C-alpha cells in the first residue's frame, strides 16, 4: 500500500520570502479585496529589490478603497524606513493605524468578497526581512477546511488585537468605500 501524503490545498508553506509572496498575491489578485490586515512590529518602504513596494500597496488600497488595518510598534528613529512607511500609510483615508509596543506577531490577511488568504509567519514587512533574513510562513486560503482557520485569524487580527489594552489608535479610517 502506498499512500501519498501532502498538505491540504488550503495550506501552503512558503520557505522563501513569504512576506513578498503575500504582497505579490495581494497586488496581483484580480478579485475585489474588501479588507487588508497588516500586523507587523516593523514596517518598511520595501525598496531595494523588493518586487512590491509600499507605494504600490498604498496605491491599490486607495484606488480600490480597501479597508486596511495596520498594527505595528511605534516607529523609532532607529528604523527610519519604519518612520517613512508610517508617514506614507497615514496619508491614506482607508487605513486605520494602531501602535502596540508588545507586538511581536506577524500576520497578514487579505479578505476578498468570496475568499481570501492569510500569511502567518516570522517575517516583518520590511526590505531587510524580505531580502536578508531567513523567514518562513504559512499561507492559509479561505476555502474548504481552511475557512475556520482563516476566520479565526481574521477575528484575532480584526477584533481581539485591535481591542486589547495597549493597541493604541493612532489614525482612524475616514472615508467610506
Amino acid at each position, binding site marked *: 500500500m502506498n499512500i501519498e501524503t501532502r498538505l491540504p490545498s488550503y495550506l501552503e508553506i512558503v520557505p522563501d520570502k513569504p512576506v513578498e509572496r503575500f504582497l505579490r498575491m495581494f497586488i496581483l489578485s484580480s478579485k475585489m479585496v474588501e479588507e487588508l490586515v497588516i500586523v507587523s512590529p516593523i514596517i518598511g518602504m520595501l525598496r531595494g529589490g523588493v518586487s512590491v513596494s509600499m507605494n504600490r500597496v498604498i496605491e491599490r488600497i486607495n484606488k480600490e478603497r480597501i479597508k486596511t488595518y495596520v498594527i505595528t510598534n511605534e516607529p523609532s528613529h532607529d528604523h527610519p524606513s519604519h518612520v517613512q512607511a508610517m508617514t506614507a500609510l497615514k496619508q491614506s483615508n482607508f487605513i486605520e493605524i494602531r501602535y502596540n509596543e508588545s507586538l511581536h506577531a506577524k500576520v497578514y490577511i487579505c479578505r476578498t468578497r468570496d475568499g481570501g488568504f492569510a500569511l502567518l509567519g516570522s517575517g516583518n514587512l520590511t526590505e531587510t526581512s524580505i531580502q536578508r533574513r531567513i523567514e518562513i510562513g504559512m499561507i492559509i486560503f479561505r476555502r474548504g477546511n481552511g475557512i475556520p482557520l482563516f476566520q479565526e485569524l481574521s*477575528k484575532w487580527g480584526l*477584533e481581539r488585537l485591535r481591542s486589547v489594552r495597549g493597541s493604541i*489608535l493612532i489614525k482612524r479610517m475616514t472615508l467610506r468605500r
Partner: protein
Amino acid sequence: MDFKEWFCLNERDSFTIDPQINSEDAQFYFGRATKLKELQTQLRKGFIDPGVPKIFIYGSYGSGKTQTLYNLAYYLQHDPPKSLQLKPAIVHVALEMQSKSDHLDWHLQLMEALGKERVSQWVDGLFNNVHNMDEALESLFSDYNIINAVKNLRGGGEMPLLAWRWLAGHRLSAGDLQRLQLTRNSGDIGAGDMVKVLIGLGHLAEKNGNKLIFFMDEVEQFRNISNPDCFEAVHNYLRQLAEQKNSSAGFIMSIFALTDDEMPQMMSRGDIKNRIGAINYIEIPPLPSVEDIRTFIYELLSNFIDRKAAEDKIQQQGLAVTLDTYPFDADAFEVLCDYASQDPTKALPRNIIKSITECAISAWDGEKAVIDVEIVNEIASLVFG
C-alpha cells in the same frame, strides 16, 4: 478592565457570531423568526417524505447562509422535530471545487467529512446487533463490492484503511483490490456507484439509530467546474442524490446566488428542480425592513450582554442608556437601524454585526461607556456607505 468587561459581554469576547469558531454560536438566529419557521418546516417535512431533507438555501454574501446551516444543525441536535425519530448524524463540509473537479472530488470531500472512525463505529454497531452480518450488509448495500469494502472496515492490519480509501473513491492498485476481494475501483462505472456508497452508509447509520445529514457550504464552488465531462459527472452525482429513492443521506446545501435562477447551472436544471421541488429552494434574503433590523439588534444584544452586569453598570455610572439598547444609547440605536435599512441590499447580518463590532471598538478606543450617535455616524457610514 478588558473589552469583554467594558461592554458586559456575557461569556464571550466580542459581538461577532461564528459557529465555525465557537460551536455555541450556532444557536443564534436573530430577527428572522418567519424564515426560521419556513426552514424548520421544510426540514420536518423532509424526514417524513422522502425520509431525509433535501434543501438548497441561497442568498448574497453576508446574508447568513453559513449561520443558517449551523443553526439548522443545532436545531436538529437540540430540539429535534417529531418526524426525526433517529439521532441526527451531522456532517458539515465546505466544498472546494476546481476547474476539473468531478464527482470523485465531491465524494471524497463528503467521505472525509463523514470520517472513517464514525463509519467504522457504525459497522461495529451493526456487527454487535445482528446474527448474520452478511445478510445485514446485503440488506443495506446492494452491491457486492461495497459490501466487501464495508466488511473490511472491521479487518486487521492495513485492510480497514484500504477499504476506507476504496469507499472514499481513491484508486487502488490491482494488488490492493485483490486483497480486499474487490473486482473494480469504486467510481469505475460512474457517479451512481459513489452515490450508492453514500446512500448505503445512510442506511447503515439508520441501523445504528442515526440519520445522516450533510450540511454543505460554499456550493457555489460548482461554478468553478469548467470541464464539460466533469460538470456532467457532478451533475449526475447530484441528480442521484436528489432522487426520491434516496431516503437515507440528506443534505442542505448553501449557495451564493441572488436569485434561484443565478444558482450554478446544474442546480437550476429541470431534472434537479423537479427532484428537489421548488419549495425546497429557500432564499436567505437581507433583512427586509427596519423593524426586522431593530429586532435583529435587540435579540443580539439581549443574548450577548450580561443583563445583571449591565444593569449595575448603568446604575453605578448613571449612564443615559436603557438596558434594552445597551451599550448603544437610544438615539444611537435608532441611527444605526436607519443606516442599516437605507440600502436593502446591504441590510445583511454580516454588515450589521460588523458595524456593532466597529462601534464598540471605537467606543473602547475613546474610553466611552456608551456608544453614542457620533460613533454610529462615523462607523455606519463606513460599513453601509
